């Protein structure tokens, strides 16, 4: 493939070290950027149409331009808390090509006017953090980070901070709280981080992949980058494909290719004699799609139109050997465990959903419970402080909607298996309905 940007040279031995990275043209983008004005670098980013690769898909250039002008202390934070189930693209980037991320951070900080930056990396990424630490030492030594970088009028400190193992800390405001040394709970927005972020200063937060793309954009120019992909989803994307496929892994593709190509041609499709039952196109928090949706172009808008989302760019394929109730329970339990507990619908809704699914699984439920469960998901979606609640409610809601007969069969089968009596209608109407 000619359009490989992020994975160019990815398997080059020693790419994580500065000499090899430099020998492959590394840090030339930084030199180019520092010779331009802040505004020029920013224009290239805006022209590229690059959308955030962390999950929300917000245009990066626009995000940078939201930072207030002025001499106040500004921050750049790289979100390396890659915790969405099924997502492992940032891990490979950081492990094999840490300097590209560092170069991207320095260029982005130059465009944003930030002089302090942080990489918040998830605690479990020990190896990657060690690799980054070594790369940071090299970059500091070589003068790519620090005072007056390469003699230009730009200084930047860059600190690597390891998280302590909470999914919620991948949410940008919870990440900021955690970085400040507090309990990692999401903050109310607004104010958005661009206005009041880290230590209440204007803060640019971007994902590892987003920032790693910045050197390529700087070198090739924003307009050229925008020619890749499709109109509203420009460029290339790393896609983590996992689950029931024969060749799981990270694939860099131009946005807009048919999803089928990714799942079947690149990842090898499901094992023999198995069929795709459903798939998450963007991590476990994306509503599931079915085999009928395999021809949807893999890009932001088409996936949204199909009722799901590109999210973090992680496809999880589930084949027909997996009961949908098991899948739902697995997903719900994850989000229940990771809910921070700050807001009501997420805290109580995730717990309740797990309890209902457990009853469904053990045959102690009725089809009415499916209606209740679906309405609980509706009550979570859009009503929470951050999107963690939605991250459970959207996939669970989509599973109930798309696989309801299987849920019903599951309940009935489990009931018979456990020798329980058929559910009967309650003897009395619940109090309150008739009275009020």
């Amino acid at each position, binding site marked *: 493939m000619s359009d490989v940007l992020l994975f160019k040279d990815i398997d080059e031995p020693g790419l994580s070290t500065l000499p090899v990275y430099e020998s492959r043209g590394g840090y030339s983008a930084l030199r180019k950027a520092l010779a331009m004005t802040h505004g020029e670098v920013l224009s290239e980013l805006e022209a590229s149409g690059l959308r955030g690769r962390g999950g929300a898909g917000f245009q990066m250039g626009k995000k940078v331009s939201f930072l207030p002008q002025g001499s106040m202390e500004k921050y750049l934070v790289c979100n390396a808390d890659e915790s969405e189930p099924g997502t492992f693209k940032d891990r490979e980037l950081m492990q094999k090509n840490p300097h590209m991320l560092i170069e991207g951070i320095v260029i982005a900080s130059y465009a944003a006017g930030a002089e302090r930056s942080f990489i918040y990396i998830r605690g479990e990424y020990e190896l990657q953090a060690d690799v980054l630490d070594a790369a940071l030492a090299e970059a500091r030594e070589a003068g790519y980070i620090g005072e007056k970088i390469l003699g230009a009028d730009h200084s930047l400190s860059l600190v690597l901070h390891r998280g302590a193992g*909470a999914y*919620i800390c991948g949410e940008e405001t919870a990440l900021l709280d955690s970085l400040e040394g507090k*309990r990692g709970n999401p903050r*109310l927005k607004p104010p958005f981080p661009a206005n009041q972020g880290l230590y209440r200063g204007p803060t640019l937060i971007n994902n590892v992949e987003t920032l790693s793309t910045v050197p390529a954009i700087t070198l090739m120019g924003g307009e050229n980058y925008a020619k890749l992909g499709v109109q509203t989803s420009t460029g290339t994307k790393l896609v983590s494909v996992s689950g029931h496929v024969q060749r799981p892994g990270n694939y860099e593709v131009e946005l807009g290719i048919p999803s089928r190509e990714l799942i079947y041609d690149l990842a090898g499709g499901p094992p023999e004699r198995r069929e795709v039952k459903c798939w998450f196109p963007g991590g476990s928090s994306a509503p599931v799609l079915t085999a009928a949706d395999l021809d949807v172009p893999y890009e932001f808008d088409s996936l949204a139109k199909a009722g799901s989302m590109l999210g973090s760019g992680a496809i999880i394929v589930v084949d027909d050997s997996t009961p949908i109730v098991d899948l739902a329970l697995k997903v719900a339990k994850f989000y*229940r*465990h*990771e*809910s*921070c*507990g*700050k*807001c*009501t*619908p997420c*805290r*109580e*809704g*995730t*717990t*309740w959903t797990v*309890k*209902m699914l457990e*009853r469904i699984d053990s045959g102690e439920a009725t089809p009415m419970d499916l209606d*209740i469960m679906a309405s*609980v998901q509706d*009550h979570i979606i*859009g*009503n*929470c*402080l951050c999107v963690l609640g939605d991250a459970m409610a959207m996939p669970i809601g989509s599973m109930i909607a798309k696989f309801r007969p299987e849920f019903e069969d599951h309940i009935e089968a489990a009931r018979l298996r456990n020798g329980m009596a058929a559910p009967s209608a309650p003897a009395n109407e*619940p*109090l*309150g*309905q008739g*009275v*009020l």
Partner: protein
Amino acid sequence: MPRPEHRAITFTIDGRDVEAPENTMLVDAAKRGDVEIPVFCYEPKLGNPVGACRMCLVEIEGIGKLQTGCSTPVKDGMVVHTQTERVKEAQRSVVEFLLINHPLDCPVCDKGGECPLQDISFGWGGGISRFVEPKRHFVKPLELSPLIAIDRERCILCYRCVRFSQEISEDYQLVLLERGAESFVSTFDGHPYVAPFSGNIIELCPVGALTSRAYRFRARPWDIEDAGSVCTLCPAQCNVTLTVRDERVMRVLARDHAEVDDGWLCDRGRFAYPALDDGAHAGHNGHVREPPGVPLELAHGVHAGMRVTEPLVRDGGELRRVSWERALAEATAGLKRAGARTGALAGGGASNEEGMLLARLMREALGSANVDSRVGGELPLELQRALAEPRLQAKVSDLEFAHAVLLLDCEPLLDAPVLDLRLRKGVRRHGMKLERISGADVRALSETAARLAQEGEELVILFSERFTAGPDGAERARALLEIAATLSLDQVDGAGLLEIPATANGRGLREAGMLSNAGPGLREVERAGLDTRAMAEALGRGELSALYLLQVDPLSARDPFATCAPEDSTWHVALERASTVVAHATFLTDGVHGHATVVFPAESYAEKEGTVTHPDGRIQRVRQAVAHAGTTRAEWRVLAELSERLGRDLGVRSEKLASQQLFDAVPFYAGLTLEQIGGRGVRWQERAQASAYTQGQA
């Protein structure tokens, strides 16, 4: 520092056009259109909204998702809906979510009947639950502290108590442990939550999760009455609501006043209420309140520490219960014998009226000018007046918005605890600069003040009475006035001086005429008398023979008159040698127990009617909430009766007349009425009559 400005805007809520100050949060703005948006976590006193409970979701035209009304500032032309099916469904669902883990043990819950969760469930909930699974369980109730019980099953995790601990009292003890539905409130180290303001979290809790251990199971909301008053246990004079059941104070709650207490109470003010009422209803002895475990004979006798509820007279070396007639006769005889050789001190929770009447009794009936309410002795009148000059007076809210505050010989946490929270608020939310200094070194003081003044023109110097006490007091006062003049503190709104007197109503007593060198309104008197120190010495030398103590005990370790007294035995000797000591006391403290010849039972503030003056000049009403303990009579009545027996009718026939006399006597209180003072008080410096202050001086 700029105060928040309020530009009026118009927005539409549920089809009605409503005017509200711009940027007020929607839930507050909605109230102006008689629309209630339910909330749990929102409490403006706690600072910025957190949007955690999601109860206040409303629909705003032009915004796709439902928005939290607690965190959405209202803008001109905003169109808000709170009654659409979409909003109602969201609110019903939040109530349903909150109740799935709530035990619904309302019938045995202290909060039942005054519980926001109950009210909101009734008003906005669906009335049924679809939740059939087992609820979350915790061991309960637990002692969060000796004062507070915590029931974690009832907790709806609204974060209010945690935010109070983290961001208001800044004791940083309360945190949420674990996460998700397993979250619970705890101290970070599991130790009891002991802090000076801990009781506020009970009032903040919107459910029955945090309850007062003293109040637990003592009354239901339908058993009680509320009585507004002012706590006079310290100069902060916080506004309170007393919960009264069967003539007993069962609880003390804050009565939010932004210019006084900001809605908070210290734990002393909140929990000291067992001292406020008779207690006889619960006890068996009918007259005195004794700590549990006191032997019966001791409880029936007269002993140190007991609550005085009947007149006592020293007979054969011991205090004995007597009739009012006998006590009044004894006091009259003793005071008549001493005549002008009598001294009088007022302190404690004595009201303005009581101070004025005692001063009149002394000056008019006994011909004695020896009256004082300053613990450290006299300050030359021109300095006393200059320090209280209206234009130089800072008010409580200035402590929050000033550019800088200098604490001068002052420890707010001890001198007027609730001000500690106000200063923390200033520092935390407005970036106020705060420094403290001892007044001993006058040069260091003026340098520090000058340096702080560079932070901005609004500088407040908060000083305690200790600063101007003692032999060097006058010199220090002069230096402070010079600093104030140099920095033009009297020219700047929001800048100035604020003195915390040693006793709760120190300012009011001075203004009512209880000073050795000044009459009512700080007016010069023809003949100055002895001040506190001089009185003690004169008693010791036998030059004075009688002492009148209005809620003062110079030998009681907790009385400011004792703590500010010299270390020597002056007061011991003085009381030893005095032939007559008349005392008004609520409790039989050491000096009164050992030396008083006549003891009149004094009213606690819950039994009292009258006015007091806040350190910043706010005249506030103390209102009677419970019946007098035992045969206690109002102090004004006792003072008037004594004066009459001593040959001078003060013309006071009711507490209202006493207040009227006070307003007539103090030029800058002129024209005040009790109705004007009402429940929020009146700051006399803000009235036109304040000009009488300066005129009186000339």
